[in-house]
């Protein structure tokens, strides 16, 4: 393992890529701790401490996780990549609904570039909305409901407020650019590496928190379960069903093509962690709406009361059931978006490939669909169960909501980690070296 690392660093272009990625990560973390001008840093630190002690302040769980603790600090990169993720989700959903976008998607590379461009515009739009919302929350003191300190230095100065909103919006733009730079010139997918960074960044602090608050025994239990879960997640992430494909030999001019047998790898968890992100983003909406529109003056109506009782805290039965069902639904939804059996079957037919025992064309598509549907069932269940773990842990150990070995964080860490290592390895293998994974 270690020798592979030294080899990776000894390869000139790979070393350049790795150092570039590390540099971007460093810049990104720097922006995540740099406070936006106009924010009273000391008061925020005091409020954060109160909120952590109170334990009920963690209503922004998911967003806070993705921003690596930067959100509540109102730093320059406070919004993190959340706007980009939300924009991507919205566009993914819109592709199914709007025919024009669907046509664009079918165009291939050019259309995809256009959709990406729309995603980028939407990201900036969402960033403006969200930064305005959070600054407004900070201004009215609702960001930390229990805390009475002034978060903003000069909260009545509209000019200063506008500056802050614009700075945070530009910060989101910069994050987007950094992510694209990593994708382009670094290792792995930029956006996922940035999420990975933020998840890892809060990790040691959360672990220390548990060790300090709950004692050594609980700490040991947490570590052991965590390692077991990582092993499990790695196992399922690597699991795939290989559908054999035989290619017929054909002559083009004087040369012989094909005649090989390969396979289509179908992963058990084809959708990755996207369903979990979708589901938690959706479930976070009612919380946000109730926080934004609740004023203490009047008695909240029944809907609001129900939402506050059932959807704000993660340990109620209603929340768990809805979360689980949403994850299962989105797993199927996302797999059906990303893998189109008809298209795969058509492509195979075009190049003279077939699955042994099944006729090319429609029967092949039906067979692929059948296998995929059956394969996704355990995948969806697994995702749902993994995502439940932090909630169960919340009930058993009494850990905070962003429990360090929480399902989503583990899925992100393992998923992105595996992917990046695989990419580095494929680059190493171009030079005939032995890789990380044997």
């Amino acid at each position, binding site marked *: 393992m270690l020798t592979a690392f030294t080899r990776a660093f000894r390869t000139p272009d790979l070393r350049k890529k790795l150092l570039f990625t590390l540099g971007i990560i460093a810049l990104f973390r720097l922006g995540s701790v740099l406070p936006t*001008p106009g924010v009273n840093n000391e008061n925020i630190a005091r409020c954060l401490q109160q909120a952590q002690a109170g334990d009920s302040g963690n209503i922004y769980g998911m967003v806070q996780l993705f921003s690596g603790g930067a959100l509540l600090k109102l730093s320059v990169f406070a919004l993190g990549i959340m706007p980009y993720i939300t924009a991507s989700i919205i566009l*993914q959903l819109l592709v199914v609904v709007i025919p024009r976008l669907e046509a664009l998607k079918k165009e291939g590379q050019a259309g*995809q*570039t256009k959709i990406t461009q729309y995603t980028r515009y939407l990201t900036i739009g969402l960033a403006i909305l969200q930064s305005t919302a959070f600054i407004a929350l900070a201004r009215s003191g609702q960001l930390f409901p229990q805390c009475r300190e002034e978060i903003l230095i000069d909260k009545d100065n509209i000019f200063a407020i506008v500056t802050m909103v614009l700075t945070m919006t530009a910060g989101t733009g910069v994050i987007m650019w950094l992510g*694209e730079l990593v994708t*382009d010139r670094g290792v792995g*997918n*930029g956006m*996922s590496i940035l999420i990975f960074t933020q998840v890892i960044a809060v990790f040691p602090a959360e672990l220390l928190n548990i060790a300090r608050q709950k004692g050594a025994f609980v700490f040991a239990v947490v570590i052991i379960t965590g390692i077991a879960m990582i092993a499990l997640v790695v196992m399922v992430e690597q699991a795939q069903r290989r559908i054999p494909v035989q290619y017929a030999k054909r002559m083009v001019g004087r040369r012989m093509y094909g005649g090989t047998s390969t396979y289509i790898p179908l992963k058990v968890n084809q959708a990755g962690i996207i369903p979990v992100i979708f589901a938690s983003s959706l479930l976070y909406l009612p919380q946000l709406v109730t926080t934004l529109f609740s004023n203490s003056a009047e008695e909240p109506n029944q809907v609001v009361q129900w939402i506050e009782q059932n959807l704000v805290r993660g340990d109620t039965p209603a929340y768990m059931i809805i979360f689980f069902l949403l994850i299962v639904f989105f797993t199927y939804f996302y797999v059906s978006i990303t893998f189109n059996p008809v298209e795969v079957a058509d492509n195979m037919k075009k190049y003279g490939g077939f699955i042994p025992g099944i006729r090319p064309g429609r029967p092949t598509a039906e067979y692929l669909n059948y296998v995929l549907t059956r394969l996704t069932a355990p995948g969806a269940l697994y995702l749902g169960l993994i995502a439940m773990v932090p909630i169960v842990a919340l009930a058993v150990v009494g850990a905070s909501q962003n429990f360090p070995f929480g399902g989503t964080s583990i899925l992100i860490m393992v998923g*992105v980690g595996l992917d990046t290592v695989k990419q580095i390895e494929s680059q190493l293998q171009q030079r005939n070296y032995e890789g990380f994974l044997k």
Partner: protein
Amino acid sequence: MTIGISIALILASLLMILLVLLHKGKGGGLSDLFGGGFSSSFGGSSVVERNLDRLTIITGVVWFVCIIALGLLLKP
């Protein structure tokens, strides 16, 4: 002084947003996120892209300096 740097920061922010949007988006959206699909990188970048990069970096540095300066000035 504060007002001046604030205005500079606003301008730098706007310019930064504009420049980032002018870049061609690399890596197609969410489908690449969290493992899935293969990433295709096609060759180097054009002269326009390289100049845009340079401009964006310069603006980014100005933006960063403005933030730090304003932050120090406003420190209570």
